[in-house]
């Protein structure tokens, strides 16, 4: 028997998802870890939904050697918009419990995936911008060298090794995505269909 209504477990999951979205606003979403021989303790950039945190000042101080522009929260419109988007996602998740229709959940899942792709592209664009737009008068110039941090994963940038990975907030979003995916699968009986084949 197929129904468009949501199962109780899906509703509970949607509630949790709403919590994860809200929670992610209070913790860093993404981190870029930098390691160098002189920095055994490491330097870290923490990207929150609304600001850049971590050792920004120290990293800005070091960037002048290679002529990289300094990082300032106010230069990124993303930090103004992002909290609203994530907040809206949370509200939508709650709303979906009451709408109680699997199609809407599917639509929301699609929107979320789209958001992730756009955010990834945007992050890549900024990384490229900062890694390539260098002051021609910088003290250290290595021909052909760019300092674009990896979108995700590890890359060596001169004496620094850069690891770009999700932070707690990022993991919240990933968990939310996985749960949404699960709800969609479950509600459209994708598990059962497979079994019947």
């Amino acid at each position: 028997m197929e129904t468009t209504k949501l199962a109780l477990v899906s509703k509970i999951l949607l509630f949790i998802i709403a919590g994860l979205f809200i929670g992610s606003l209070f913790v860093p979403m993404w981190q870029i870890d930098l390691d160098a021989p002189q920095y055994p303790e490491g330097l870290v950039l923490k990207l929150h939904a609304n600001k850049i945190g971590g050792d920004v000042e120290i990293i800005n101080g070091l960037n002048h050697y290679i002529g990289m522009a300094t990082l300032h929260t106010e230069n990124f419109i993303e930090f103004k918009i992002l909290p609203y988007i994530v907040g809206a996602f949370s509200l939508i998740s709650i709303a979906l419990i009451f709408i109680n229709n699997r199609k809407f959940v599917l639509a929301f899942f699609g929107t979320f995936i789209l958001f992730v792709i756009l955010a990834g592209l945007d992050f890549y664009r900024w990384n490229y911008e900062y890694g390539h737009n260098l002051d021609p008068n910088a003290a250290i110039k290595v021909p052909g060298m760019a300092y674009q941090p990896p979108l995700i994963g590890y890359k060596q940038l001169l004496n620094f090794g850069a690891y770009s990975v999700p932070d707690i907030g990022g993991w919240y979003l990933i968990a939310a995505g996985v749960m949404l995916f699960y709800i969609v699968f479950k509600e459209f009986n994708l598990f059962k269909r497979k079994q019947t084949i």
Partner: protein
Amino acid sequence: MKVIRYLNLTTYIMKNKFVQAVLVIALGSALVTSCKPKSSGDAVSGDAAEKAYVAPGKYDEFYNFVSGGFSGQLSVYGLPSGRLFRVIPVFSVDPEKGWGYSEETKPMLNTSHGFVPWDDLHHTEMSQTNGEVDGRWVFGNANNTPRIARIDLKTFKTAEIIELPNSGGNHSSPFITENTEYVVAGTRFSVPADYSNGDVPINTYKENYKGHISFVSVDKKSGEMDLAFQIVTPGVNFDLSHAGKGKSHGWFFFSCYNTEQANTLLEVNASQKDKDFIMAVNWKKAEEYIKAGKGKKQKVKYAHNTWDEHTHSAKSVMKDEVLVLDASELKDICYMIPCPKSPHGCDVDPTGEFIVGSGKLAALIPVFSFDKLQAAIKGKKFEGDYGGIPVVKYEAALHGEVQKPGLGPLHTEFDGKGSAYTTFFVSSEVVKWDIKTLKVLDRVPTYYSVGHLCIPGGDSKKPFGKYLIAYNKITKDRYLPTGPELAQSAQIFDISGDKMKLILDFPTIGEPHYAQAAPADLIRNNGQLKFYKLEDNKHPYAAKGEKEAKVVREGNKVHVYMTSIRSHFAPDNIEGVFLGDEVYFHVTNLEQDWDVPHGFAVKGANNGELLIMPGETTTLKWIPDRVGTFPFYCTDFCSALHQEMQGYIRVSPKGSKVPLQFSLGTNLPTTK
């Protein structure tokens, strides 16, 4: 023929007394040589290297705060590696760190005698709470111009120095009570009090010379010191001291010698009496008398110098009054306990019950009992008085004597497991003995002639045991020789087992006397600072950003508000300074990260350098002595472009028309 000749020779030898004597000496020396231990290397056990080894990148278990003796400084070592981490300037100037050279630090070395650039730091004592080391501060004494310093262990910097009036040779200091209520100071030299006429014949010691014991209170929160009161006693030499703890909290014990009151040739004249004293001071009682208004206000002069972490500057205030209690009038503050042969060390065991006196010429160690002392005082078991102070009967206060421990006992520390460890200067050894039974348990040689010793927490209620460090007075052949003047020698023993085991020798700076040690985590996790916050910098001449960098002329004074950041100064081109000007470089280090100090030095300065920690502002005064252009540069290798971190200051003749100007990066060549 041959036989006769031989006989003749034998009789000749036997008859000639001189030859006989030579034979005896030769035989004797051969015997002695064969009996002598092969070398001190034998004293090292097989696993010593492993025990003292701290692998590269690993941390030591303990911090060791070692007095610098005649260097006037305090050195910080790691245990068990014996590695030197830092020399904290305290009582002596240190041009390397700008201590006593920068304008901000000069007031720290101010005294009632003016600026004193050197002193002799003998003892360190860490602050305690409930009788346990708390890792907040370490105190040090200045022996020559009597003072006490407090070093803040959040910054490893001297935070405060207080001078002590009525004193000469502040030796029995800076020992503390179990909650750091007081840090004490007993004068080594009795002298005519500052509030009396000092212009008296030296041979009127007995009438005119007095001893003064200072009780300096320590603020629980800020640590700030205040000379609460002094106790005046007959003229003697106070040597060392330790506070009671636990049951004996409220009492303080000072060893004293020269009770003969000699004023010349003390090595003979002060060694006449069979017994001198340990003076027991009931400081709680003294507090009551102070409250009751029994203290006499006396006119004196002493400096109180404090460091402000926000202005990064010191302030020196001259004080002019001290409250003095008279021990001979107020009969129940002080009691004398006879102690053999010019006692030196005066140490109290972790329970507070046993007081160990070490007569430096004695061949035994008397151990006194606090309970018996109390009973003796109650039962008035006195054998008379000394200058109005009751003298308790020796036997009445005695717990017992350690028999034949060695020669010349000096200092004792405790392991918290019932054992005491005493150093012997003359017989050059450390002897372990049982506090209760007074039996000798073990002995190890030291190389050579040990003075003080230190067990982590060894004078507190809670010793950490494990290691014992002997600070030796004679070095001789222990290290590669360096001409007539040698490094001083310290030795680490593993005391975790029944037997003491030598595990490491290490050279030290200055001449170490007393030292203290505490578990590394206690100090590392006490909120230690990594750098100063620029936003908290309240220095009146701070430039908190390059936009604030400027040069301001006030008459013939030129104030340079300079900033330093990797890898440039702002400004780095300065013109319009004239001969006859006094130039003040106020350098602010704009860095806000750990371990990025910058230095500053200018050519021809009759001054030290500056080492400026991140977020700090420090000032170097420079009086140019000639017309010309003078380079200045960063002296602390700060970055890849450290060699580029430099600038010029131009000095023109007096009355020249060169305008005052300063810049960074904009003063480009006018000719092409």
